Structure formats: C-alpha cells, structure tokens
C-alpha cells in the first residue's frame, strides 16, 4: 500500500515539490493520494464530488508547498489537514443550500450506526487509532468523531448530543489530548 510510505520520504518529496519538482509531485501523489482521497471520501461521501475535492487538494499542495515547514509538523499532517479543511468546506457550502436543520435531525436518527463499518481500513494504523479511541469517554469520542468524520460544527455537535456548548468544546479538546497522548503524537 503506497499510503504507508514513511513520513520522512513524504517530507522530502514535499520539500522538493516546493522547489518546483514535478517528478517529486507525482511521487508524492502516489504516496499520499489514497490518504487524501480516503479523508475526502469519508467526509464528502459523494464519489464525484470527492474526486473534485481530491483534485483541488492535490493542486493546492502543489501551489502552496512553499508554506510547508518540516520543523512544524510532518508533510502527511500538513496535507491531511488541508484535505480535511477542503472537504469540510465542500460539505458546508453544499449544505448551505439545503435544509440544514432537517439534515441535523436525520443525523440524530442515524448517529447510533457505527461509523467503523464504512471505513476502508489501513489495518495497522487503524488498530492503533481504534485502541486510542477506546481510551476516550463516550462523549469525547462522539464529539471528536462527529466533528472530524461528519463535518459538524461544535454547535451542531452540541445540538445533536443534547449537551451544552461549553461542554462540547472542552470534550473535543480533552478527547483529542487523550488521543494525542495515547498515540504518542508529538506534533
């Protein structure tokens, strides 16, 4: 699986891309493309729209590669952060034209379904993350997953879970902090 390429390699590729190296970009596409598309598919759902967003993200990687600073995080984090933001933007602009409240109500109904069943999994990565997620309280896990995988704002998450805004904000934060520590993420 090309998506498992070591991060050092991706960092070096992205630095080369920042210098205008198109061959490095092609290699980076092969390395992180499946990860980018995975995040985008997960959030956007619609295959055609996901394809558009993945394309946008990869072109954005090319265009703004000079902003990447390896001292501030890995290339993979940089790219997946961008992919998630783009996917969220697409979902929110899409929803602006729909009845948002209705969708939230539908989601209320559907939220008990386990998201895990929809995942295409990277076994090792997923096992680690699943173990880490299991250390979270139920509210922490729901808050983080509804926001990250479904693209809800924290206000919507609070509404969905019938929990005060302040509580949701702090659960997202302490949930992620617990995940960070369980995964040994150093930033």
């Amino acid at each position, binding site marked *: 699986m090309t998506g498992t390429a070591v991060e050092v390699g991706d960092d070096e590729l992205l630095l080369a891309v920042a210098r205008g190296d198109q061959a490095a970009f092609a290699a980076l596409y092969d390395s992180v493309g499946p990860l980018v598309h995975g995040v985008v598919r997960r959030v956007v759902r619609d295959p055609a729209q996901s394809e558009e967003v993945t394309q946008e993200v990869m072109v954005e990687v090319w265009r703004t590669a000079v902003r990447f600073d390896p001292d501030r995080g890995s290339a993979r984090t940089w790219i997946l952060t961008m992919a998630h933001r783009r996917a969220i933007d697409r979902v929110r602009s899409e929803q602006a034209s729909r009845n948002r409240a209705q969708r939230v109500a539908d989601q209320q109904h559907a939220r008990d379904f386990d998201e895990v069943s929809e995942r295409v999994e990277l076994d090792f990565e997923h096992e680690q993350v699943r173990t880490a997620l299991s250390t979270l309280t139920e509210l922490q896990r729901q808050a983080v997953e509804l926001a990250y995988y479904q693209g809800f*704002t924290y206000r919507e*998450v609070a509404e969905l879970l019938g929990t005060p805004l302040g509580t949701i904000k702090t659960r997202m934060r302490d949930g992620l902090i617990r*995940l960070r520590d369980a995964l040994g993420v150093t930033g």
Partner: protein
Amino acid sequence: MTERPDLHTLTGAFAVDALPEDEQERFEDHLAVCDACEQEVRELQATAARLGATSVAAPPPSLRGRVLAEIDGVRQERPAPIVVPDELAARRTAPRWVAATLGVAAAMLLLSVGGLVVVVTSLQEQVAGLEVAAGAAEQANADLASVSARLAELEQQASEATLVTTSALTDVLAAPDAITVSVTHDDVLGRVVASPTRGEAVFIAEGWDPAPHEHTYELWLITPDGAVPAGLFDPDERGRATRVMTGDMARATAVGITIEPEGGSPVPSDEPMMVLQLG
C-alpha cells in the same frame, strides 16, 4: 488573553475544523499571538491527521493524469512576504487578508520588530546599507587582492546609485506629508515613498532577483476600484531598481507587485508577491 479565557479551549474544535467561519477567523487571530495554543493546535492537528489516516481510498486512476496535467499550468506560490511597516503604517490596523497571509512566525516578528524599523530617508543611511552590501561581497570573495579592487568599485557604484536614488526621491521626500512604507522578505526589500497631497510616489527595490525569462515586475496602485498599473521595473545586476510610479497616488490604499509577461499587463495576472500598505 485574560479577557477571553475561553479561547484557549477552542484548540480541539479548531483542530477538527469544527468552528464556524467567524469563530475560526477569530481563533486564527488568537493563534498568532498565543504560543501555547499554537503548539497545542499543531499537536492536535497531527492527532486529527491520524484519525484521517485510518481511511484510505484509491483515487480513480484517471485522476492522476488530470492532476499532473493541471499542476503543469499552475504557478506555485512564492514565500509569503514578511510585512514590516514603518511607524506610521504600524499605527494603522492591517486588513484581515494581510494578517491571514502572515505565518505565525511572521506575525510574531512583526510584533517584536515593528517598533524598531526606521524609515530610511537619509543619504547616510543608504550609504550605510551599501557598505553592508560591500561587506557581504568581501566575505564572498576569498581573493584578498581582488577584494580591495572590488570594494573600491562597489564604493564607486554605491555613491552613484545613492545619488540617482536621492535625486529621484527629492521632490517626494520634500513634501510635508511624505510617508515611507517598507516591506522586506529574506533580504528582498521594497520601499515606497509617497506624498498623498502631491499624488506622487517612488518605488525602490533592493535585493531582487531578475524577473523570469520574458517577464517583468509590475507595480500596481490598489484603489477602491481595483488595481491600476503603476509602472514596470527590472532590477539591475545588483538587484536594485528605482521607479517613479505613474497613476494617482491620492486614491491608492496600497502598492502591489506582480510578475507579468514582458511589456506588462493591464490587470494583475496573479496574487501580488509583495504588498505595501499605505494605510
């Protein structure tokens, strides 16, 4: 941030993109001045990326060719300019998009050095700057004999360049309302000396690379109605240029610089690589 203690708790929601747009912008402003939050956000974004990495989906094979074809026609961003306004400009609030283009480090730099930047208006200071350049040339040259010859040559060039610059500046500088705005990034300096009442301005470039083949740098007056061409410039072999700008400075709120095909363009063809806010 004692007046907004709750801002610190938004790191998690920010890292998973769960803030509505207005709150996201406010939090980004906060991040620029709060090291603790900035560090935490970086770690939590890396954590969120791990959540993302559990989903892998091969993009359709046709996408690869489309992406590679598209980037072939997409110009890459250059390093974002670090905006260092002089004291006059520093008193005014930079517009939101300018703040947004600054990295956190740049914003911190702005805070720490903004008050120290001195408007260069005197011949003495320009000469001092050129002596620094001559010093750098000296370091670069291992041959001591040629260093002294080169230094003499540089000093000659320096005094000539200073005279040209100074005469071009005299009229504008003499105006009682003359303002100077400088932007530097990696030793690339752009400076505008402008007199709003006279409607005139001079642009000075130092440390600029040549424009790409068959391209030129173009100056723009940013007005409420859009960007107006204000002249072209091409740095000399020492990276310097002085250009009396065309157009009515009275309506300009900023000066922008883009790279354009030879001969210039009627409208900018890309985002400016440098912007000098006139306030």
